[in-house]
């Protein structure tokens, strides 16, 4: 039985561009189920990243509602949202965005530290997952000493280390060559299958779209499924 995890109702986002309203999203109604491997595709400026940011509570909609496990999270306070994201979401960014002064292992440990998990346990879990996903050898490397693909794989492990319900990946392969992109996407598919983590991608990369179990096409702020 499919379990709903995220739902939007008439989601709208209007940006103010020097007094000119720009409609990024024009009423999105979307339901996403647990364990889905969903890709939101569309041309540049179609609203993919905006939708992803709203689903990930990084931004507030101008109109409409967002429900997480049937609870309205649209108007949660900033303080509550950081805690909510920590427990429920994992994020993968286009530019990897690892903390440059921490090693790969420490980057992965970081979100566990925010959850108050003791160091020994953090280290054990991080090593295990890195080993499982074949990046153990990167443990002591800092972002500057890793390739883009390596950084993105570390970012992916960081995103799932706390067993989030949903991982939001914004153009994760945009800066990678196709071979590295394949390795990364295979890894994420594995995590999706083995851990039943919901993956929501924003991408117009064919590699990503080809692996989608569900593909949403956004155009001018509207879904063309």
């Amino acid at each position, binding site marked *: 039985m499919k379990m709903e995890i995220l739902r939007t109702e008439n989601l709208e986002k209007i940006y103010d561009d020097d007094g000119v309203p720009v409609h990024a999203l024009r009423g999105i109604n979307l339901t996403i189920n647990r364990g889905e491997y969903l890709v939101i595709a569309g041309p540049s400026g179609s609203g993919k990243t905006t939708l992803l940011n709203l689903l990930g509570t990084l*931004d507030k909609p101008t109109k409409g509602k967002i429900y997480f496990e049937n609870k309205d999270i649209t108007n949660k306070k900033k*303080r509550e949202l*950081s805690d909510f994201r*920590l427990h429920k979401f994992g*994020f993968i*960014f286009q530019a990897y965005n690892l903390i*440059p002064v*921490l090693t790969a292992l*420490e980057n992965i440990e970081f979100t566990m530290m*925010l959850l108050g998990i003791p160091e020994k346990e953090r280290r054990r879990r991080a090593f295990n997952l890195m080993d499982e996903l074949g990046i153990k050898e990167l443990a002591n490397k800092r972002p500057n000493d890793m390739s883009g693909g390596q950084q993105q794989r570390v970012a992916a492990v960081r995103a799932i280390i706390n067993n989030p319900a949903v991982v939001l990946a914004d153009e994760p392969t945009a800066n990678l060559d196709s071979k590295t992109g394949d390795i990364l996407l295979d890894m994420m598919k594995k995590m999706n299958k083995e851990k039943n983590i919901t993956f929501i991608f924003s991408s117009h990369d064919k590699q990503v779209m080809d692996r989608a179990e569900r593909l949403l096409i956004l155009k001018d702020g509207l879904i063309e499924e």
Partner: protein
Amino acid sequence: MLLKLAWRNIWRNKRHSAIVVGSVIVGVIAVILMDGLTSGMLYQMLFNQISSSVSHIQIHKKGFNDNKVVQSFMPDYYKAEDVVKENTSVQSYSKKVVSFGLLSSASSSSGVFINGINPSGEEKVTKIKNSIVEGSYLTGNKREIVIGKDLADKLNSKLGDKVVILTNTPDGTISSDVFRIVGTYETFSSAFDKAFIYIPLENAQQMLNIGDNIHELAIITKDYGQVDKVKEQIASQLSDEYEVLSYEDMLPMLLVQIDLYKQSMFITDVIIGLALIFGIINVMLMAVFERIQEFGVLMSIGMKNSKLFLMIIIEALIIGIIGTVVGIVIGIIIEIPLSYIGIDLSLFAESLKSFGSGAIIYPVIVPENLIGVLIIIPFISIVGAIYPAYKAIKLEPVSAIRYV
């Protein structure tokens, strides 16, 4: 891990951090040297007064300190002397006859403060013997006089010259005696040198016609910190006819002056602290603006504002602590040799002489000042980081991530 992250963030931009740590170090060294120099000057002012004339404790007939009239000699100084002798905390003491008079040479005269002393006792209490610049200290012979070099110049007198002291006896008659200058001295204060003259105790008693009476017992205690306790002990053993005064009782104006200087020292420290605050705000703001995107990521992955705020504060605190500790170490390394060789402020010597501190200032390392610096400067660093940290937590994650 937050500490580790903060520590590594500091060294991410070594130049920025070096500038701010360097400014803290310079500020701390400035504070330490300023405090050391001012404390040294204040201590010298106080100890010069103590070692030249005031001593730690004085015993007189009650009321003598306020009204130094010749007939106010001690009622029974043998009794007071016994009490002083029996007190084990007393290191040395000196019997004195004290009076005002007029000292005249062949060409000039000047009002003076006459001190009739027992030379061997006095040298254990005051440092006049060590201040002799020409001739000798009182040798024990009759009718010798030691005067300040400035006074000798004023009177156009030199060693071996005769001078006449004119003074009042208790019954109001004028008394005078002739003395020969055997030595001149020079102390920290020209005002002192022009006023204080030293003659043998017996000559003073004879000239003033007060028998074997004295006006003052001046005491030096073994431990400077025990002055109040010793004063209380002695006072409790003497009747109400005596007054027992500590240097604090006798130098109220100097103590007020020292207090004022301490306040002005505090204001100087505050000004240096304010300069440091703005330096830290500047560097921490730069550090925040350089990392806006990173803060966006940290907020996105669930870092609470409080932790982000704390991280920036910790960074500033580490900078403050490093700068303070290094600054204190360098400050002490600079100050230790200076505290032995002194800083010669001869350019200002005249004003310093009238000030009572002497021309060479020996900086003093005051542990309380160092502890104060160790607490206040890191605290100032925290204050300087509050605004940048506030700016950081006010960022919206989504716009921060997009920030280029």
